Each structure stands twice: as structure tokens, then as C-alpha cells.
């Protein structure tokens, strides 16, 4: 069986899973639906492994294959096939996506158990995995856009999963519309590529592009900038990021899978996939890198002050993706993909741990109200610390190796790219502080009432009275099933525990596949993808990498120490700092006012135009034209009115009569 056949199977299983659960939503018992969903993704993972093995059996230069099912829309010179492209990069993405997804399905199997929408949840989740796989396996730009949009749709459906919550539906709409803006960017890029190269196929585009475009020619720059619009919208980079924090309205496994581990990294994948084009447009690549850097820092500062647990982690996701974007934009392709993988492990884990804690808090997400979970939930706490250490790039963890590889590359490339190393380390400091701020607020200390209840009774806290929306305080519409009658924490649910256990191991040890001077598993595997790229040929020396790792280790430890000082040793300092640096704090708490700016610049004007069109233009111009004419005609006397009223009816009758007459004439003459 060839690699492409396995790859088609990778796509097939999640799709079948989604359709089966979707169609069987009335007959399937809930747990069976969950099992089908989880099994479908596990099978896709197995097929992914098979693809990998089949690819490894070949010569490294020959490891790229295209395959298509049927002509999808191929006329008038546009040749669009339902085709996939299998190479180390897509297989790498397939393995990360299916691997992490399998674990998250497993987690959801326990976590969502009491939710009324259980089956719907798994149907959507399977559909999401299918879309994501389509995105990474697509063999041409049109199918890429299809996968791209499907992913956006799945994300929308899952964000507004509890669809009677106004906040959830609003957040879903925001995510969807911003993602459509990204789709449009991609579509325009595809048009421009077709205009210049006459094809949408990856292999042809990447082969022709270096011969057709001059470096930094406006067309190739425009293509890359348009691709970036798509990439930034999906990967929540400035200024298209505002949907991601709001997306935390969805169930926590969704935040873990879609809004941390997989979907939001699609932009990184896209830049890596089209690196041939970006190398022809260095200006666009630099813009991408600087946007990544800005996102990395700004999101880090916001994460410092967020009190909502999930939103804080969401900003951290933005910040980490900033690192990846910097990596793949400056040429550290393998390093960027490596960080994508390790981030998927530790961020999924962090969200899972957060979900477990939020369940114990009966859906309260405010970290100010949490403390002392170390005693109440030992397993979850350990998992959270593992994820936190990796995120903070603590020496030896996965994040430690992957983040530093990007920064060491920037240093090795030299010139102005050293900025990325320096500011990247600043971001690393922020990361360590905000990560351990969360951990130190939640885990040590005197148990909060909910944690105490868990310690005393072994039962998860249930609030009295109707459930409330944690964001607005409104009474929830309990019909939708949320919050389910039971909350599930990892300590009491083996699937959750298993998923978190595996991820905790990967978060700690996953970096060992790529230790400078020791091994280079991912770099070597991805090597053929960047063949011929001058940027990929730059390698920092092992010594430089170890120097970088030394700096990184110091920064990580300092960051954790600062957090310890602020939140454990001198817990009164944060408030003091807040008072001293009020303008800065206000800026961070208000998320640098991006929402307000977009609202002011785009949403309000659009609605105002709509209202104007509705109230003024439609009434006075469009309608006025007719009414005016009618009035004039009416005014000229009753004779006209009679004619006018009778006219239409007579015309209709006349027409029928005339038609009948002509038909008769026809019948008679023939």
C-alpha cells in the first residue's frame, strides 16, 4: 500500500466517524458515540504512522507524492482536482494532529460525559480533525482553502457549542467572520498565483515560482502578504487575534485541541509550506517575523494580568505561536515545526489541567478565587506543573529545546535578526512569570472553599441554585445541558487521567528527540522539504546552541523565581506594582484596546452604513423614485387613476388572450 493510499485513509476515518455520529445522533448510546469518535481518530493516527513508515522506506529525495481522486472543478483552464500532497511536512503535521487529537478525544470522553450535547460534540470534534487533516494534506491551493474554511467552521460550531449562551454565540460569530477574512486573503493569494503561474497545484507552483518571480517583485510580495492575512487570522496574530480569547467560551477540550494544539498552528504550517514563495519575498517574510514578535510580546504582557484562567492560557498560546511564526519566517523551519509539536503537547496538557480545575470550581474561571488545589487535586496539579515547566522552558523540558532552537537560529542568521533572539528571550522571561503566576495562585496556599469541599467530602462542588454564566452572571439556559449535572475532574475519570498522563510525559520528555549535538530526529526527517533553500542551510553550531540553551535556562529559572517572589514570598507586591504602574496595567488589562479599535474602525461604520441604507437611502431614494412617479401620475387626475388601476389587470388579461390567440393561430396554420 502506497503512502498516498494511507494518507487517504487518514482523511477517511475522521470523516466517517463524524458522519456516523451525526446520522446516528438519535440511536447511538452516548458512550458508544464517544467511543466511535475516539476510535476514528486513533485509527487515523495509526494510518498516519503507516504513512510515515511507508515514506521512511523511500529515498529521502523521493519522499513527496501527489494523488488525486477526481476532477473537482476543471474547466476554462482552471484545473482543480481533489488531490493531496504527501511529504515529510504533511506527514509530520498529520502525526501531531491525530496524535494530540486522539488524547483530547479520550479526555473529552470523560470530561463531557454529563453534557446533553455529547454526541453532537463528538460529531463536531471528528469533523474538525477531518478538516485539519484536509488542510495539511491538501495538494493545491483550492483544497487548502477548503480545509482552511472547514477548520474555521468547526471552530465556530464548537465555540458556540452551548448555543443558548449569548456570549458563546457572539464569540462564535466573531471567530467565524475573522476567519472568513483570512479565507479571503488566501483566496486572493490563490487568484494572484493563478494569474502569474497558471496553476493551483503546490508542486507546480513551487517549481515555477523561482523562475517567474524576481526577488521582492511586487507580485510575489503581494502574494505572500495575502497568504499572511490568512495565516494571521487563523493563528491569532496581530491584528486578527481578538477572536481567540473569546473562543474560550467553548468547552475546555475544544480550547485544548482547536484553540491551542492544532488549528491555530495552521498559519505556521502555511508559511512553512509556502516557504519557497516567502524566500522570494524577503520583505514579506520580515513583516511576518516582526508581526510574530509583536504578538509574542503583547500577548505575553496581557497574559500577565488576565484573571480568567482559560483566557490567560489563550494569550499564552498567541504568544507561543508568535515564536513559531518568527521561526518559520526567518528560516528556522524545522525549529518552528518542532516548537509547534512541543507546544501542542504542553499547551493541550495545560488546558486539560485547567479544565479539570474549572470543573472542580463548578465552572468558575477566575483565578482570584482559586487556591490550594495542590492538596485537593494532586494529579491535576502535577500535570499542570509539568505543562507549566515546559511552557516556561525549564531546562530539560520539551519547550526548553524547541524555543531555544528558534532563538539560536535567529542569532546564527545574524544581522538585524539578532533582535529576534534578544526580544525572544524577553518574551521567554514574561512566559516564565505569567505561567508560574497561574500555578502559584492555583496550586499552593490555603484551599479555597471548593478545594476544601473536595478534600473533605471527595465530591466536586455544586453551587446552589441555577447555574450562572461565569462571564456575565446571567442565569444559564439549562436545557442545552450546560453545565451538565456532573462535573468531571481527572482524579475521578480514568480517560482524562490517561490522556493527561501521556501528555505530561511528552511535555517533559518530548524535547529529547532534538538535542543539539546529540540527535536531530525532526530536523533530519523534515530536511528534504526545505531542499534547495539557502535559509534552511544555515545551522547554528552546537556550541552556539548550547550557549543559547544556557541563557534560556537562566531566564526560565529567573522568571520562575520572580513569580515565586511576587506571588508566594511577597504576595502584596503585585497590588503595589499595579498601583505604581497604573497606565501600563490599564493597557494590559484592556488587552491593548484592540477590540475597541476594531469595533470603532470597522464594525460601527459598517453598521452605520447599513442603518443609513435602510432608513434613508431605501426609503427616500429607491422607494421615492417609484412613489414619486406614482404620486405625480395620481395627481394629474382621476382619469389617469382609473387607467392606472385597470391597466395592469387588462394588460395581464390581454397578454393571456394574445398568447392563446397566437397559439391557436400556430395550431391552425400547421
Amino acid at each position, binding site marked *: 500500500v502506497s503512502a498516498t493510499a494511507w494518507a487517504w485513509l487518514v482523511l477517511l476515518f475522521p470523516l466517517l466517524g463524524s458522519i456516523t455520529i451525526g446520522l446516528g445522533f438519535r440511536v447511538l448510546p452516548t458512550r458508544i458515540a464517544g467511543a466511535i469518535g475516539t476510535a476514528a481518530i486513533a485509527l487515523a493516527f495509526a494510518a498516519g504512522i503507516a504513512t510515515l513508515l511507508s515514506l521512511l522506506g523511500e529515498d529521502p529525495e523521493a519522499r513527496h507524492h501527489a494523488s488525486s481522486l477526481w476532477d473537482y472543478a476543471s474547466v476554462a483552464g*482552471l484545473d482543480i482536482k481533489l488531490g493531496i500532497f504527501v511529504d515529510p511536512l504533511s506527514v509530520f503535521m498529520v502525526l501531531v494532529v491525530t496524535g494530540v487529537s486522539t488524547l483530547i478525544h479520550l479526555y473529552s470522553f470523560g470530561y463531557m460525559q454529563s453534557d446533553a450535547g455529547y454526541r453532537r460534540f463528538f460529531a463536531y470534534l471528528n469533523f474538525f480533525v477531518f478538516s485539519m487533516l484536509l488542510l495539511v494534506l491538501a495538494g493545491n491551493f483550492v483544497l487548502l482553502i477548503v480545509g482552511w474554511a472547514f477548520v474555521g467552521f468547526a471552530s465556530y460550531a464548537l465555540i458556540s457549542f452551548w448555543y443558548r449562551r449569548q456570549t458563546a454565540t457572539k464569540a462564535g460569530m466573531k471567530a467565524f467572520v475573522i476567519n472568513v477574512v483570512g479565507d479571503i486573503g488566501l483566496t486572493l493569494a490563490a487568484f494572484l498565483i493563478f494569474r502569474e503561474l497558471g496553476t493551483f497545484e503546490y508542486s507546480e507552483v513551487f517549481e515555477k515560482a523561482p523562475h517567474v518571480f524576481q526577488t521582492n517583485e511586487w507580485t510575489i510580495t503581494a502574494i505572500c502578504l495575502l497568504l499572511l492575512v490568512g495565516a494571521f487570522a487563523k493563528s491569532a496574530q496581530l491584528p486578527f487575534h481578538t477572536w481567540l480569547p473569546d473562543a474560550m467560551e467553548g468547552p475546555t477540550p475544544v480550547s485544548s485541541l482547536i484553540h491551542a494544539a492544532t488549528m491555530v498552528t495552521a498559519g505556521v504550517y502555511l508559511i512553512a509550506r509556502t516557504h519557497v514563495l516567502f524566500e522570494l519575498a524577503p520583505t514579506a517574510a520580515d513583516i511576518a517575523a516582526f508581526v510574530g514578535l509583536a504578538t509574542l510580546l503583547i500577548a505575553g504582557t496581557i497574559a500577565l494580568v488576565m484573571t480568567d484562567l482559560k483566557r490567560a492560557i489563550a494569550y499564552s498560546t498567541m504568544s507561543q505561536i508568535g515564536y513559531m511564526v518568527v521561526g518559520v519566517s526567518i528560516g528556522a523551519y524545522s525549529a518552528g515545526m518542532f516548537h509547534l509539536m512541543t507546544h501542542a503537547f504542553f499547551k493541550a496538557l495545560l488546558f486539560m489541567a485547567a479544565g479539570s480545575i474549572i470543573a472542580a470550581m463548578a465552572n468558575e474561571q477566575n483565578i482570584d478565587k482559586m487556591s490550594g488545589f495542590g492538596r485537593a487535586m494532586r494529579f491535576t496539579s502535577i500535570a499542570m506543573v509539568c505543562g507549566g515547566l515546559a511552557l516556561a522552558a525549564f531546562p530539560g523540558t520539551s519547550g526548553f529545546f524547541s524555543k531555544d532552537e528558534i532563538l539560536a537560529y535567529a542569532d546564527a542568521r545574524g544581522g538585524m535578526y539578532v533582535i529576534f533572539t534578544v526580544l525572544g528571550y524577553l518574551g521567554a522571561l514574561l512566559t516564565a512569570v505569567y505561567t508560574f503566576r497561574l500555578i502559584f495562585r492555583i496550586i499552593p496556599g490555603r484551599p479555597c472553599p471548593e478545594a476544601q469541599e473536595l478534600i473533605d467530602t471527595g465530591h466536586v462542588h455544586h453551587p446552589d441554585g441555577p447555574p450562572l454564566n461565569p462571564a456575565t452572571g446571567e442565569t444559564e439556559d439549562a436545557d442545552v445541558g450546560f453545565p451538565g449535572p456532573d462535573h468531571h475532574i481527572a482524579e475521578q475519570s480514568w480517560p482524562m487521567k490517561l490522556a493527561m498522563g501521556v501528555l505530561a510525559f511528552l511535555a517533559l520528555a518530548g524535547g529529547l528527540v532534538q538535542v543539539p549535538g546529540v540527535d536531530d530526529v525532526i530536523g533530519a526527517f523534515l530536511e528534504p522539504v526545505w531542499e534547495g533553500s539557502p535559509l534552511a542551510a544555515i545551522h547554528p553550531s552546537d556550541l552556539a546552541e548550547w550557549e543559547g540553551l544556557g541563557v534560556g535556562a537562566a531566564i526560565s529559572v529567573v522568571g520562575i523565581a520572580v513569580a515565586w517572589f511576587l506571588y508566594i514570598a511577597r504576595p502584596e507586591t503585585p497590588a503595589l506594582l499595579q498601583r505604581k504602574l497604573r497606565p501600563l496595567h490599564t493597557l494590559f488589562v484592556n488587552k491593548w484596546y484592540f477590540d475597541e479599535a476594531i469595533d470603532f474602525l470597522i464594525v460601527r461604520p459598517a453598521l452605520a452604513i447599513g442603518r443609513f441604507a435602510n432608513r434613508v437611502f431605501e426609503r427616500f431614494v429607491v422607494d421615492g423614485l417609484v412613489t414619486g412617479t406614482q404620486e405625480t401620475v395620481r395627481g394629474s387626475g382621476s382619469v389617469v387613476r382609473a387607467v392606472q388601476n385597470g391597466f*395592469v389587470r387588462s394588460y395581464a388579461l390581454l397578454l393571456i388572450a394574445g398568447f392563446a390567440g397566437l397559439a391557436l393561430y400556430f395550431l391552425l396554420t400547421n
Partner: protein
Amino acid sequence: MLNSLLWTPLAFGIVGLFLPKRAIGWWATLGAVVTLGLAIAILVGFDSGSSSLQDTVDVAWIPGLGVDYSLGVDGLNVFLVLLTAVLWTGGTAFAAFREQERPQLFFFLMLVAETATLGSFLAQDLLLFVLFFDLMLVPFYFLFGVWGSDREDGPSAAAATLKMIVYTLIGSLLMLVAAIATAIIASDGGHLTFSIAELQRQGLGEDSQRWIFWFFAAAFLVKMPAFMLHGWMPDAYRAAPLPVLVVFSGVLAKVGAYGFLRVVLPLFPDATVEFQEAILVIALASILYGSVMAFTQTNVRLIAGYSSIAQLGFITAGIFALRADGADGAILQMVNHGLVVAPLFVIVAVLVERTGTEDLRAMGGMALRAPVLAALFLIVAMATLAMPGSANFIGEFYILNGLFEEKIVFACIAISGVAMSAFYALRLYQGTMHNRQPDGAASREIGWRDGVVLAPLVLCILGLALYPQLILHRTERSVQQTVAGVTGGEAPEAKLANEMKAHDWEVTLTGR
């Protein structure tokens, strides 16, 4: 074959006048189904390799005036005929499941309307086209006026219908004058003919083309309707009975767009090139204005109505890109739009029955007890906003790609309509299915009666999404011929252009 297709609905309608009230709905549905069967048979026998007319019927009708009774199908109309048959089946069945006043007359008029619509798609004689085009108005005039509903917040059904008729009638009369003028001027004192193919061969002077072009354009743009000529639409849509609106919105607008392809492009090629940008400006205005209106409306019918204006704007833009890909996309999009807007109005009808209102603000939360309805609606909504993966996306992709190659600025402005469509389609979906359920509304699953109307239409959407090539492949030849007739040898065919690019590339390769 075409003869039986064309007259079957009318025959059923006439017989139905003498049937008992109870049976009439089913009899009419049977008529629509038989017509659908014939339309499918025609598609099966259709030769996609040929660009010329097939299954032609051509008899001299009024020899003295050169009017022929001539029908034919080619790539331009074969799927529109099928669309008509499909939507009429759905619309008639939907009406048959519900009580109608004076059912014999109602279904008679429905079927007359089907014959008239099929006639305007099939006619290959200019005067025959004009006659069928006008005949379409008559049944709808009565259907809207008599079975429509008076509104508290708007004009009465009669007034709304009158407004619609005045608008379209002006267009129709202009078109009648233009058709006669075309034949007379083209004959140049010689043999008078109304055959479109014959007229195309004779050709028309550039000066005459100029004004005749606008006469036809006016009729077609009113029908769509296009921006500034849509004044009749809001009132008529609010007054119209919903089963009628299913076919009206799904098919009639397309007759206008189709008219451009069948009549205007072949007969007035010089004027088409000359006024390309003017029409594109109108199309763009329709896209933007329709979208903006759609996302501020609160009446669910009007959201669908204004979204149609935007969609027809896209279709017009595709045709006037004057490239094969744009026009291919336009035809695909005509079918797509029919297939989404018809179920949309069925869903609107179903929702109105459950909530007792058409105001989006007073709706919501329907998805809870109606997951099937919600799922079907979700598919329709996603297709409406041309979600990539739907055939609508491929349609818009072709249209915009054509426009992009020809007029890059227009394409970049038009594409903003895509973002707005995401907003209004989702707003409609969320506003009805999600959020809180208002008091007095009942969330109820659809029964099998609505299911048998909705599900096949949704299946059509899904099927086309998987294989839009079905349509593209069969329309390609005719479209290419029509477009080449306008642009002549000047603009290279898309395929040729690619080969040229590939050639350039090879030169560059060897040059290095």
C-alpha cells in the same frame, strides 16, 4: 422531447382545474414530478462535447413576421431547466402539504408559471423569449395579489403586487420594443427573422447596439433585481405567499441573468464590451448594497431577499467579466443560488409557523428540539455564504477569478461581499436557531412533510458540493462559444493563456 417538457405543467394545470379540491395538490405535484423526470431525461441525453443547440424544435409560427416556435437546450440553459423543474417540484409539494384557498386556481397558476419559465429558458426565438418572459408575470401577479398577505407594517398585497408589476412591466415593454427593433434593423429591409442564431449571424450596427443593449439590460436588471431597480422587491417579498416565493426567488431572478447570456452577449457584442464596466459597477453596487441591507434587516424574508440581490450581483459580475471562467462560474452560481434560496424560504416558512413572527429579534433557540431542522438549516446557511467546500464557493471562485484576471480592482471590491455574506448568513442562522428561545415560540422538529421537501434540496446542495464538475463540464463548451463571440479573437482563451505562460516559463528556464 422539449415540447413535452414545456407543455406538461400546463396540461396538468388545465386538467387540475376539473379535479376535486382534495386531489389537486397531489395532481399538481405529480405534474411537477413528471416534468422533473423529463428534465432529467434531457440532461442524461445531453452531449457535453457539443456547443450547439440540442433537441431542437423549430417550426415556423408566424411566417409573415419571421417568428419561429423554436426551442433548444445547450450548456447555457440545460441546468437552469433542471433547476426550474427541481424547485417547482419542491414548491408545489410544499404548497400541497398546506391548506390553500381556491386550490384549483392556485395550482393552475403555479403550473402555468412553470411552463412560462421553462419557455423563457428554452426559447431560441427572440419574440418567443419575450412572450414567455412576459407570460411569467401573469401567474405571479395573481399568486402574489390574491394569495399574498396584507401587512400591518407595509402596503397591502395588492399594492405590493402593483408596484412589482409596474417595475417589471416597464422593463418588459422596453424589451418588446428592443426585440422588434433588433429584428427590423438586422433584417435591413430583407427577410425579417427573430431567430437568435440568425440575428447573431446578421449582426447589428454599433450605434443600434448601444441603445438596444440598455433596453434589454433594463428588463433583465429589474428582474434580478439589481441595485436601484430593486424597489419592488421588499414589498413583494413580504407580501408573497411563501410556497410561491420558493420558486419565485429560486428561479425568476435567474431568467434575468440568463437573458444576458442568451440574448445580450450574442446579439450586442460591441455594446457588451463597451458597457462592460458600467454593468460591472451596477453588479458591484448590488453586491455591496444587498449585503449591507441583508445584515441590517430584521425581517427574515428580506434578509433572504437582499442576500439574493448580492448573489445576483456576483452572477452578473461573472458574466460581464467576459471570460469563460467567469461565465462558467455564473451559470454554476445560478443553479447554486436557486438551490440555497429555495430551501431557505421553506425554512423561513417552517420557522414562521413555529414562532408566529417574521422578526429576527423575536426568534431564537429553535435548535434545541429540532436538531434535524437545525442541521439542514446549517448546511443551507453555509452554502449561502459560499463556504469553501460548497459548490457555491466554486461558483464564486470561478466568477471572482475571471473578474480578477480581467478587472482586478473590481474583483478586490467584490470579494468584500464574501465577508459580509458570512455575517448576514450566520446572523440569520444564529438569530433563529441559537440564543434564548422567546416566550410563545415552540421549538418543534420538522415533520416528514417538510422533510421530504427540504431533504432532497439539501442533498442536491451536498451532491453538487462534492462534484461541481457535473455542471461546469457540461456548460463549458457553450459558454466558451458565447464568450468568444463577444471578445472575438482579441482576448485569449484561458487555456491558451496558461499555455502561453507555461511557454514563457520554459523560455525563461532555457534562457538562464
